[in-house]
C-alpha cells in the first residue's frame, strides 16, 4: 500500500476495484463502511458481484469479469476528454502521458460500455467523481491481480491515480490490501526467486558479493524458479525435491491436479506444517511447526508495518518453531552460520544486510511497529510512499490494451467461474477453528436465480461443476448478488476443492494465476 490504514479515515472517496474488503480484509472494510455510513466519504465500487460495499456505494460499476483494463481506460478517456486530469502532477511527476492519452483515446464510453457491461452514464459519474475529489483513494486486491493481465491491471490503477494526481498524498494512493498475514513480509524477506531480503536483486554483483561475505558462501547469481515454473519443472522431471513450508498448494494453487502430479513426480518432498494439509499428504517427511501463538517473531502487514508476534504458550506436543527447524537442517548439512539463539538475532542480521529495514529493531517496534522504508534508527518510518518522487524517479504511464481472460465460457463450458474468500474462513486454517467451521462448514457456491431455474436447483441443493481440468460437487446458494451466467466459489474446503477447476494460466510477469475466470459447465446432482 502506498498509504496506511489510518489514512482510510482521511479520504473523501474510496474507489474500490476488485476487492471485497468486508469479507477478505474485514478491518479495512469496517473503516470504509463506517466512513461511508457517517457521510464522511463517498464510495465507488467496481465489481462483478453485488458485494456488501456495492450495496453501500454511491456508484456501483458492475463490470464483466476480466474487463478491468477497458473500464479503467474508459474512465481515463472521460477524465482527459473533460480536462479533469491533474496537469501539474503529470508534468512534474510523470512521463509517458502522450502514449497513454493515445491509447485511452480509443476507449470511448460507448465502446467501453459494450465491453464491460457498465452503462455509459455510470462511467461518466465515476470518472468525474474520482477525478474531482481531492482526497480519493484507490483500493484493490486479488480481483485485479489474479488475471493473466494482472500486472497490466495493476499498472492501470497506477495510471488513473497518477493521471488525477492521487498519489504521494494523504488520503490518496493506490492501496492493495495484501492477502495473507505475512505475504508482505515473505516478499520483504526475500522468499522470492529474484531478490534477497529488502528487494536486493540476486543478479546484482555488488549485492551478491555483500551476501557472500555475510553468509560466508558462494551464491548463485541466476534467477530461481517461480512456483508455477517449479511445478512444471517437477512434472517434467527436472525438479527432484521440494521443501514446502506452511503452504498448501494442492488446495490453494490453480489447477490442483497439475500440482498433485508435480508432487507425485518428485523424489523427495518435505512438508513443514501445523496440520495434515492436502499437500503434506504427498510428503515423504513432515516436520511439525509451531503456530503463531508458540513463537516469537514479526509479521509485516499490507501497510508495510513490521509488528511483533509474541510467544504466548509453549509449542504444542513436540512441535518446534519453524526457524529453529530450518536452522537445525542447515547445521546438519554442515553450514555453521545459521546458529541463531532467537528470532531477534535473525531480524538483526537481516536488517544489517537490508537498507530499507536497517532502522527497524525489536526495541523500536515494541509498541506500534514501524512502516518501511526505515533506513536508520532515527528514521520515523514511512506511512505514505512517493510523496516527493517515485522509486524510479518519475512515474511512468503505461499505455495498456485489453487482454481477455485465458479461458472464457463457450458452448461446451457455458458458465464463468470466479473464486475468492468468504468472511468466516481464512484460506485453510480456520477449518480447524471449531466455532468458525461450525458456522460455515461447507461450500455454498453463489449462482443467479435465472441460472438456478434453468438448472432446476434451489439453495442447499447440489450441482456438479466441471471444467476442462476437473470436476467437483458443491451445494449452491441462489442469489442475485452474482450476475447470470456466473458461478462464484470459495477455495476453503478440501471437500469441495475449487482449485481443481481453475485454469492453469498465469500473468507472464508476476506468474499470478487467473483464479478469477474459468469456464465451467453445471449440472444438478440428485
Amino acid at each position, binding site marked *: 500500500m502506498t498509504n496506511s490504514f489510518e489514512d482510510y479515515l482521511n479520504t473523501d472517496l474510496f474507489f474500490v476495484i476488485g476487492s471485497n474488503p468486508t469479507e477478505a480484509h474485514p478491518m479495512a472494510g469496517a473503516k470504509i463502511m463506517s466512513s461511508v455510513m457517517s457521510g464522511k466519504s463517498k464510495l465507488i465500487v467496481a465489481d462483478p458481484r453485488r458485494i456488501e460495499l456495492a450495496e453501500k456505494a454511491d456508484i456501483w460499476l458492475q463490470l464483466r469479469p476480466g474487463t478491468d483494463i477497458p473500464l479503467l481506460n474508459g474512465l481515463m478517456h472521460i477524465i482527459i476528454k473533460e480536462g479533469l486530469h491533474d496537469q501539474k502532477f503529470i508534468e512534474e511527476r510523470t512521463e509517458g502521458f502522450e502514449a497513454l492519452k493515445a491509447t485511452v483515446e480509443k476507449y470511448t464510453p460507448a465502446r467501453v460500455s459494450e465491453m464491460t457491461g457498465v452503462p455509459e452514464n455510470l462511467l461518466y459519474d465515476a470518472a468525474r467523481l474520482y477525478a474531482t475529489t481531492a482526497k480519493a483513494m484507490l483500493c484493490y486486491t486479488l480481483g485485479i491481480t489474479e488475471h493473466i493481465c494482472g500486472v497490466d491491471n495493476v499498472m492501470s490503477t497506477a495510471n488513473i491515480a497518477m493521471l488525477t494526481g492521487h498519489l504521494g498524498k494523504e488520503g490518496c494512493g493506490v492501496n492493495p490490501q495484501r*492477502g495473507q498475514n505475512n505475504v508482505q513480509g515473505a516478499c520483504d524477506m526475500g522468499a522470492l526467486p529474484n531478490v534477497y531480503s529488502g528487494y536486493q536483486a540476486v543478479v546484482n554483483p555488488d549485492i551478491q558479493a555483500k551476501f557472500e561475505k555475510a553468509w560466508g558462501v558462494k551464491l548463485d547469481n541466476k534467477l530461481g524458479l517461480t512456483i508455477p515454473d517449479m511445478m512444471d519443472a517437477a512434472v517434467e522431471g527436472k525438479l527432484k525435491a521440494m521443501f514446502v513450508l506452511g503452504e498448501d498448494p494442492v488446495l490453494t494453487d490453480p489447477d490442483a491436479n497439475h500440482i498433485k502430479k508435480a508432487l507425485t513426480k518428485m523424489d523427495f518432498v518435505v512438508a513443514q506444517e501445523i496440520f495434515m494439509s492436502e499437500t503434506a499428504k504427498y510428503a515423504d517427511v513432515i516436520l*511439525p511447526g509451531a503456530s503463531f501463538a508458540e513463537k516469537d517473531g514479526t509479521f509485516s502487514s499490507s501497510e508495510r508495518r513490521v509488528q511483533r508476534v509474541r510467544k504466548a504458550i509453549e509449542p504444542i506436543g513436540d512441535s518446534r518453531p519453524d526457524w529453529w527447524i530450518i536452522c537445525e537442517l542447515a547445521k546438519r548439512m554442515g553450514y555453521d552460520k545459521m546458529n541463531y539463539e532467537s528470532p531477534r538475532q535473525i531480524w538483526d542480521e537481516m536488517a544489517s544486510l537490508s537498507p530499507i529495514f536497517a532502522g527497524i529493531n525489536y526495541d523500536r517496534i515494541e509498541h506500534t511497529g514501524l512502516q518501511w522504508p526505515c533506513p536508520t534508527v532515527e528514521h520515523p518510518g514511512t506511512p505514505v510512499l512517493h510523496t516527493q518522487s517515485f522509486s524510479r524517479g518519475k512515474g511512468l504511464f503505461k499505455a495498456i490494451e485489453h487482454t481477455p481472460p485465458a479461458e472464457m465460457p463457450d458452448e461446451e463450458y457455458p458458465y464463468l467461474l470466479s473464486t475468492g474468500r468468504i468472511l468466516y474462513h481464512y484460506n485453510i486454517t480456520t477449518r480447524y477453528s471449531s466455532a468458525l467451521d461450525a458456522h460455515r462448514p461447507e461450500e455454498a457456491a453463489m449462482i443467479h436465480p435465472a441460472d438456478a431455474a434453468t438448472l432446476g436447483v434451489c439453495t442447499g441443493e447440489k450441482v456438479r461443476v466441471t471444467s476442462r481440468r476437473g470436476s467437483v460437487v458443491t451445494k449452491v446458494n441462489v442469489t442475485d448478488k452474482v450476475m447470470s451466467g456466473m458461478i462464484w466459489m470459495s477455495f476453503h474446503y478440501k471437500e469441495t476443492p475449487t482449485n481443481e477447476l481453475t485454469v492453469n494460466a498465469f500473468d507472464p510477469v508476476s506468474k499470478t494465476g487467473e483464479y478469477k475466470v474459468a469456464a465451467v459447465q453445471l449440472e444438478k446432482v440428485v
Partner: protein
Amino acid sequence: MPTVTLTIDGQQVTVPKGTTVLEAAWKAGSFVPTFCHDPELTKPGACRICVVEIKGARNLPASCVTAAAEGMIVETASPAVIDARKTILELMLDNHPEDCLTCHQAGDCKLQDYAYFYNVKPGAFGGECKNYEIEDDNLFIVRNMNKCILCGKCLRACEEKQGRAVIDFAYRGFRTKVATALDKPLADSVCVSCGTCVSVCPTGALTEKAMLGSARKWEVQKVRTTCPFCGVGCNFDLNVKGGKVIGVTSNAAAPANGRDLCVKGRFGTDYVHSPKRLTKPLIKKNGEFVESTWDEALDLVASKFGEIKTKFGSDSIAALSSARCTNEDNYVMQKFMRAVIGTNNVDHCART
C-alpha cells in the same frame, strides 16, 4: 491552539479549548467514573455517572458532554456529586442480577468496581427486575440483557466503528433494550459476529462464548501479538491460562485496528489447540506416516537433500516459503536455500 484554564478540585488545569470537563478532570488527576463515555465514540451523555459540581451551574452536569470553560470551578467529589452517583448505582443494582460470584466479567466490570468504590449495595429501591432469557443462540457471543445498563456503547461501536448498526435501542422506558431489527436473535440478524460490541461492554451483558467459564479475569495472562489471518495486521491480546490460549481480547493500542477485530481474529484462534495439530515428526514408510524423533527426521531430510544436491545439482531442489510464517522464518528459509542448498529456487504464494 486556544486554551482554557479552569480549577478542578482546587487544582488549576489548562486544556485546549473544546476539551470536556471529564477529560480536564482526568488530566488533573481526579477520579471520575464513566459508563457510556468512550473516547472513540460519539457522546450521548446518557448514564450521568460522571456528573460533577460546577460553581454557578443550576444542576450537576454530565462532565463528558460539558465543555471546559475559562475560569470554571469544578468539584468532582462533593457530597452532592457522591450522592447523585450513589443513587444512579442503586438504581442500576436493583435492576441487575446479583451474580458477581459466577459472572464472567467479575474483576473487569465497571458496575462492580464503582459499587465497591462507593460502597453501594442492592436493595435500596427494590421493585421490578428485568427478566430476559439469556441469548446464546449464536456460536460466538452470549448476550445477557439482564446485565445491560443501557450505556449504548455497543450500538454506537457497531455503527461508528464497524459501519453496520445491527443493534439499537428498542422499546421504551423500563422495557428499553438493546436489540436487533425486530428483536430477533443475533444469529438471525445481519450481525457478522465481529464482537466489537463485546469489547466495549462495561458489564457482563456481552461475553465471548468460548471464554465463558474458562478463567477468572485476574487469572488471565494477556500477550499482545499480531493476527495470523489476513494482511491488515490487526493486533490483539491472546488470553492465556495454564499454558493454554483460551481466547482473544482487543487491545486499544493496536495501530491498525484499535479495539476492533473481525470474527476470525476474535473467535478463530482456537485452531492452535485443535486435536488435529501435528505434534511429532512423521516419516512415510511403505506409504504410511510413522512417528519419528526429531533427530531421525532431520538427519533424513539433511541427507536426502545432500544426496539430491550432489547427484542432480542445487537447482534440482526448490522451496515454497510461507506467507503465514514470520519474517524470521522466511529469512532463514531463503538463506537456507541460497547458502546451504545453493539455489535461488525459493518462492511463496505472493503470486498465486
